[in-house]
Structures are given as structure tokens and as C-alpha cells.
């Protein structure tokens, strides 16, 4: 399955990555060679095999009690952002 420039642009947009024109070509060639190479997996018979999402899949999700453990640390955390005002993060206007 060859992917073309259009598909690359579509994926790049889905992943919110700006690519320069020459990057699109480079990525296309390299991704195609990787995808061709992973094609070998298709020939493996995986009928009746459950996916393994997790190396230790017999363990179960631990839980925590419903208690408040986090304190307000807004002022310090906001300093990590370049764009904030009056305790709010700012982004270019989002139009729905």
C-alpha cells in the first residue's frame, strides 16, 4: 500500500504537524519504506490470538480513595506558559 503526498498531508494534519514541501516528500519516501517493511507481519497467522496491550496483562487496575491530595499550585504552573492572563491560558480565538 503506497501512501501519496495527499495522504501524508492528511496524516500530518490529523497529527497537527506543519511540514514544509520538501519534508512531505522525504516523509513519504521513508514512511513508505517502513510500511513496506512491516508488511511482513501480514503473513503471520493471528487467528484466535488475543492482542497483548500490556506486557503484564494478568495484572489489574489499582485504584485510589476518593480524597483530595492536590493543592492549588496555579501561580507556579502558569509560569510555564507563554500566554496566560488573569489565571487563564490564552489561545488564538477558537471559532466553533
Amino acid at each position, binding site marked *: 500500500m503506497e501512501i501519496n503526498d495527499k495522504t501524508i498531508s492528511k496524516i500530518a494534519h490529523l497529527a497537527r504537524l506543519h511540514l514544509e514541501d520538501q519534508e512531505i516528500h522525504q516523509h513519504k519516501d521513508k514512511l513508505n519504506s517502513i510500511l513496506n517493511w512491516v508488511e511482513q507481519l501480514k503473513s503471520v497467522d493471528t487467528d484466535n490470538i488475543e492482542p497483548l496491550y500490556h506486557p503484564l496483562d494478568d495484572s489489574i487496575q489499582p485504584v485510589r480513595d476518593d480524597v483530595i491530595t492536590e493543592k492549588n499550585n496555579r501561580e507556579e504552573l502558569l509560569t510555564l506558559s507563554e500566554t496566560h492572563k488573569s489565571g487563564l491560558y490564552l489561545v488564538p*480565538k477558537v471559532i466553533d
Partner: protein
Amino acid sequence: MQWESVIGLEVHTQLKTKSKLFSGSPTEYGAMPNTQASIIDLGMPGVLPVLNQKVVEMAIQFGLAVSAKINNRSIFARKNYFYPDLPKGYQISQHDIPIVGTGYLEIENNGAIKKIGITRAHLEEDAGKSIHDLYDNCSAIDLNRAGTPLLEIVSEPDMRSSQEAIIYLKKLHRIVTYLDICDGNLQEGSFRVDANVSIRPVGDTELGTRTELKNINSFKFIEQAIKYEIQRQIKILESNGKVIQETRLYDPVKNETKAMRSKEEAHDYRYFPDPDLLPLEIDKKLLQKCQKNMPELPHDKLERFIKEYKLSKYDASVLTTEKTLADYFENVSNLTSAKSKTVANWIITEFLSYLNKDSVDVTNAPIKAEMLAKLINKIEDKTINGKIAKTVFEKMWNSGKEADAIIKEENLIQLNDDKKLLEIINNILVEHNDKVQDYKNGKIKLFSFFVGQVMKESKGKANPSQVNKLLQGILENS
């Protein structure tokens, strides 16, 4: 052509926990922006989610309440999309295997019982809030709500009218509030409804193209929005048009629905199991614990009210429409020696009509249960009579003062003294001697006139049953 509407509902209920779904941040409504957003809620690099046990129990109890299958192994998945109020770039939700599987709710419409299927209910995190109208060129992001636990309850497309939809929603609302897993506040977004609406010719079995109505914040508006949408779709189809599958927003001012600006691309959420979380297992022990701690559901409470308080089915069903009202009734009952029926009457005739008049809910009513109990006790111990009590109730409602204070201030204590009552009665009879003669000649209806006059003379304070007795004695014997 005869059209049939088909409605399915998705309800996001915000679960009433102290802390968030995957972090120990508080969930309280109305805090200053971003003061309840920890490093985990902000999706800082390297942070990880840990599941809140309470949320699991709440979801299980909901499942039990709608006779649903509880999946003993459910999976958290990531729903990937970019939006500024979604800090991680994905929402942790449940996709393939939700915690609650298929169940149902029974609704009653005009005496007929109908089963509405529940497809599933799954746990997920809420997003933050984007504020678009605060600044000219910017949207502002508050992430306090990010990570708050939601239980999304999805129904089958089993409803055939806006009325059925509302009955279903009110019943669902009653269940989640009875379970005490959701505060049920529509305005604050604790109970958010999306409606999928389509129409088809009566008799068809295939579904028509549906539209989705999003985030409508009152039952009344939901009903209006669905009604409007059905009519809009009928108009389109009858003029040979096509309904477009889209999301529409309801404008309550204009009473119409409007298409959201269509997204430039189709969504591709790329769901996959969240590798930061393991499968959630629900063992027998936990199920039994949830079953054991199950709060009383509306139906059981109704039966109990009939049995325990000897109430009529009507009274019991009115009192159990809302859990807060049922609790109010029980609180008052426990604090007074009056008959349950008396308490029920006070709540149904007085309390509820004042609530409606001022459109406030039970928890915000100015007369608390203890205050009403004290008022009723004042009737029981003959301090005031029932009629005066209604005046006192009104004054309590308006001022928030206790019955005692009002009775004292306004000098409303009941007149129980025979001597004083006789004095008033005699004066009245002398004054209306002609009517006394008429009465004796057989116009016995005049008895209530005399009672009325006595009450008036005593400024309503006379003990009515005593007045009856004394008046009867005099009139019979003279």
C-alpha cells in the same frame, strides 16, 4: 404522509465525587480559574492517571439500578483529538468494553408502561472550559473541570415523541439523584443531554438520517428543541429535501435549532486501549458491596412511604418525585408528632406551591424541614390554629424566620379560653339577633356564618373546634 419520530438520548452525568477521575484534585463547582488543575489535569509531561475507586462504585450502582449487565472486565481507551481545553490531546474514555452494558428503564406515559433500552454507560473524563467571549482576539482556557468524572449513559433509539424523551430523562434524573451519584444540576452542567433525532414514515423499520442536538440545559428546552427538530425534518422530507447528518444547537430565544459550523474534516478519534491503565476488574466482592450499599430507589421509597407512613399512593408518589423532597418529608415527619398525612398535606399543598411560585428547589427553600416541623407542632399543641398557621407559613417563607418568632411578634397565639370565647360568641349572637331567629326557624346553614363572625372578631385566633362546640351548645339550648 404519517411520520414517526425516533429519539435516542446520550446523557453525560457528572459524578458527585470529591476528587477527579484520575487525579486527587478537587471537583467543586465555581472555583477560581485553573486553581483546581494539578500537574496531572494539565497533562504535564510524564504524569500518569490513577483511577478513583468511588467512581467505579457509582457506575456499578447505576448499572444495578437500570438492571444492566456489569462487565467484570472493562477497558479504558484514549479518544484522540486536538482542542485547547483537552490538555493531553486525548480524552480517557471507554470504547469497546464499557463498565455498564445493556439495561433498561421503564417509563409510564398516559398510563402505559414502556421499556426504554439502555445501550451502555461508560466512564470518561470531562474536558476543561473554553471561554470565547472574554477577550477580543483570544479564547481563554480554564482547566478546573478537566478530568472531572462523567458517566455517559446512552439509550437505544426507543423514544417516539419529545414527551417520551422528557419522561425518560426525568426518570433517569431521578435515578442518578436518588443514587446520590450526581447532583442533577442542569444549569451547572451536571446532567448534560444530547438528543439524536430522526423521522421515518410510520411503518418503516429503517432509521432515517439523524441530527444531534447538543448540550441543552433544561428539560423544557430539550422538549422544545426535539419538537422543533421533528417539525423541521418533516418539512424537509415533505418538500423532497434530504436531512443532513450534523450537530445542531438549540437557541431557546428564537426556539429553533441551527447547524454548528460544519467541521472541515471528519473526525478520526483513533481510539486505542490506554497503555497507562490496566483492565478494570470488578469482582463479586465489589459487586456485593455496591448492592449492599445501594440507596433506596424511587419505586422502593414509594412502596415504603405507603406502608410506613400510611399515605395514599398519590401522596406517596408526589413526595417521592424528587429525593430531596422525600428526604424533606421524612425529616419533618421525624420531628413532629403530627400524623404523616398532616405532614404530607402541608408539603404537597403549601410547600410545593411556594416552591413552584418562586421556582426554587427543595434544598434552597427558605423553610427548612426543622422549621416546618416546629410550625406543625404549634398546631398540634394548640398554640395556633391551622388557618393562622398558613399565615405564619407565608411569613416564614418571606422572612426566613422561625414560626415561634412570628407567632410572638404578631401575637397569633390561639384563643382556647372558654370564658373569653363565650364572651365573643355572646356578643356576636346579640349583635345578630335576627339571624339567630332565622337559624332557629330552620336556616341551619347560618351556623358557619356565626363561626366566621367569631373567627373574624378573634382575628382568626379562636380555636375553631372549641368555637364549634360552644356555639352549638348555646344555639341548641337557648
